[in-house]
């Protein structure tokens, strides 16, 4: 008799885990609360560092969604029960699904920039988030961001909602830096005479090709970098934004007018993850992301036998890293189902 795994969450991690498990001959049920698969990936335009279209990655993931996978869209889980090593997932509409293993791939939420009130998101006209900019890129490929605006200066603010005890997030979201540099280049491509500034604390260009992208941003695109965290923003009468930072490299406070301020919002744990983790009694870290049973050796297992984790519900990760993690999770699940090892 073939074994079944239920995967909760149809984003990058969920789709890849489902596809891999299915290829390993395991019956897969994929539950997604939204109407379509893809999660955040569907909102991104191009991916760092090579700026390939996000659609290409989605197309690959979608190819893995064959008949062997039972898909439940618009499905919210109301309860999870467990008996004799079998899981029963009860949906809000009363349907019951059962399986031998459970994979949580519920991902993350973006930080709500409104919480950094002093940055004026939602209040000032020309303050947007990096996610909104991606949406703009995805939908308005050739359009100018500043129709009707005379001078063109853009400020990109790093670490919005990350490394910030005041909003309860001590951790680094680690991908905002490279996103900021990518978006700076993309803005420059749309508007060759724009002046673009990144306000950063450290540039954490940790992964392959990231540093090179930073270099290119400086050398080829003339993006300017000012080391200093945005302290506050104010709106000028002409709707431009006055930003105030300490230019920590000169040791002087600095103010500057920008026409558009982009906030690089970080990762936060999603409430849905918290809710499901509560049902299953899973461990939450200080950062409120979920913890595997062993971060080095069992990065996809939990202390709860048969329950596995995949993707960004464990913390910020790039799409590339998420796919690797999802494959590791699939292998872990398969091993469990075949050998009973977690």
């Amino acid at each position, binding site marked *: 008799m073939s074994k079944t795994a239920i995967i909760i969450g149809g984003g990058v991690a969920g789709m890849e885990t489902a596809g891999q498990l299915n290829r390993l001959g395991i019956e897969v049920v994929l539950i997604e609360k939204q109407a379509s698969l893809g999660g955040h990936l569907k909102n991104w335009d191009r991916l760092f560092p090579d700026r390939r279209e996000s659609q290409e990655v989605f197309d690959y993931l979608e190819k893995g969604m064959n008949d062997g996978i039972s898909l439940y869209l618009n499905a919210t889980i109301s309860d999870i029960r467990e008996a004799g090593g079998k899981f029963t997932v009860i949906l809000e509409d009363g349907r019951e699904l059962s399986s031998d293993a459970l994979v949580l791939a519920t991902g993350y939420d973006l930080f709500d920039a*409104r919480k950094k009130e*002093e940055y004026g998101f939602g*209040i*000032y006209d020309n303050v947007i988030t990096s996610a909104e900019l991606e949406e703009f890129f995805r939908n308005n490929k050739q359009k100018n961001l500043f129709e009707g605006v005379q001078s063109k200066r853009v400020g990109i603010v790093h670490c919005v909602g990350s490394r910030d005890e005041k909003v309860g997030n001590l951790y680094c979201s680690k991908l905002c830096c490279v996103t900021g540099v990518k978006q700076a280049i993309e803005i420059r491509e749309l508007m060759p005479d724009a002046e673009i500034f990144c306000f950063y604390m450290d540039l954490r260009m940790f992964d392959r090709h990231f540093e090179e992208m930073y270099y290119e941003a400086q050398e080829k695109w003339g993006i300017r970098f000012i080391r200093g965290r945005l302290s*506050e923003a*104010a709106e000028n*009468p002409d*709707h431009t934004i*006055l930003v105030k930072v300490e230019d920590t490299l000169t040791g002087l406070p600095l103010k500057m007018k920008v026409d558009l301020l982009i906030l690089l919002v970080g990762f936060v744990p999603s409430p849905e993850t918290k809710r499901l983790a509560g049902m299953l009694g899973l461990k939450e870290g200080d950062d409120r992301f979920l913890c595997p049973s062993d971060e080095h050796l069992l990065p996809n297992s939990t202390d709860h036998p048969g329950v596995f984790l995949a993707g960004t519900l464990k913390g910020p990760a790039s799409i590339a890293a998420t796919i690797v993690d999802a494959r590791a999770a699939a292998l872990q699940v398969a091993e469990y189902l075949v050998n009973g090892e977690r």
Partner: protein
Amino acid sequence: MKIEGKKQIWNDYQKEIAEDHFFYVRSCIRQNFFPGSEKSFLRIMKEELKKDVYENPSHTTCSGIGYHTDIVPFETSMTMVARQFALMTEAGYENFTTSCITSFGLYSEVLNTWEHEPEMEEKAREFLYKATGREFKKPKNVSHASDVIYRFRKEIAEKGKYRLVNKLTGEPIRVVEHIGCHYSKMFPSKGVGGAEYPYVLIGMIEDWGGEVIDYPERRHCCGFGFRQYLVQANRGFSVSCSKKKFDSMEPYQPEMILTNCPGCPMFLDRWQYAISEMEGKTYGPDGTGIPVLTYEELAGLVLGHDPWDLGLQVHQVPVEPLLDKIGISYDPEKKFKAADGSDIGRPEAPVYLKFYPEQA
């Protein structure tokens, strides 16, 4: 500016403000700076709004000035705060309202500390009892007097004789508001509208007919900062802070500055004189400066109180142009006369700032 965004924040930061029966504590310095303000508050509350406001003559400083200049230790401060609460408890009141912003900040800080560290509250009770034999209950509601005026702003508007509108043009008076730092910067949830976009004064201005002007340095400190001002050599820092604000608001052509703190109106008013004398720079039209009012003075004006009863003659920046604009009637002859008709003297005419009508 997206007003919906601000409204969302104002909705998020609403605080409870008592309806009646206030135990009122005064500010140490306001009675010298703008002596009409606290009197105006009591008059409005008692006579116009018919509220019960009680003052105990034996209440003291909250010690906030000493605390913020690192002279008075926290333990002493919280014991003095406890004594104020004891006076309130003894008088049978539960709603505590303060005239001073720093006091409001200190009361909030002490209560918050007691909440997180109950052993500190025990200590305060012990110290107070040992020193005075008094005991206290914590107030049910703590508000700043500007919160209270904010709460009754609509009633004041209804009873009001004037609106903040230019009599000739029909345009609303352009007002910049300045909130005292200790009002909500320490505890955003304790202020109406939070720390970044406080609503307490904006609510008054809007309901009384004026237009609020936001400007880039709105959040900047007026420069009072106890340590800056108390040492004479540091006053340059204080005046520089105020100047930064004036320079930032100047292009918006504000007709008036509204404040809710003891120090801010003092410095925003007097420094305009100092800057004009030191650098020849004035900020209002034709060298008149930008009038600075406290919310009690403004409420009094709206209700039709006599400007000289409100103590507006002690302002360094002349208020007459503003009064004329709104159409508030006043007797220029009485400006420098005491209540009994005697002469209270006149300040020397500034060189650049136009203080006397004949200078204009």
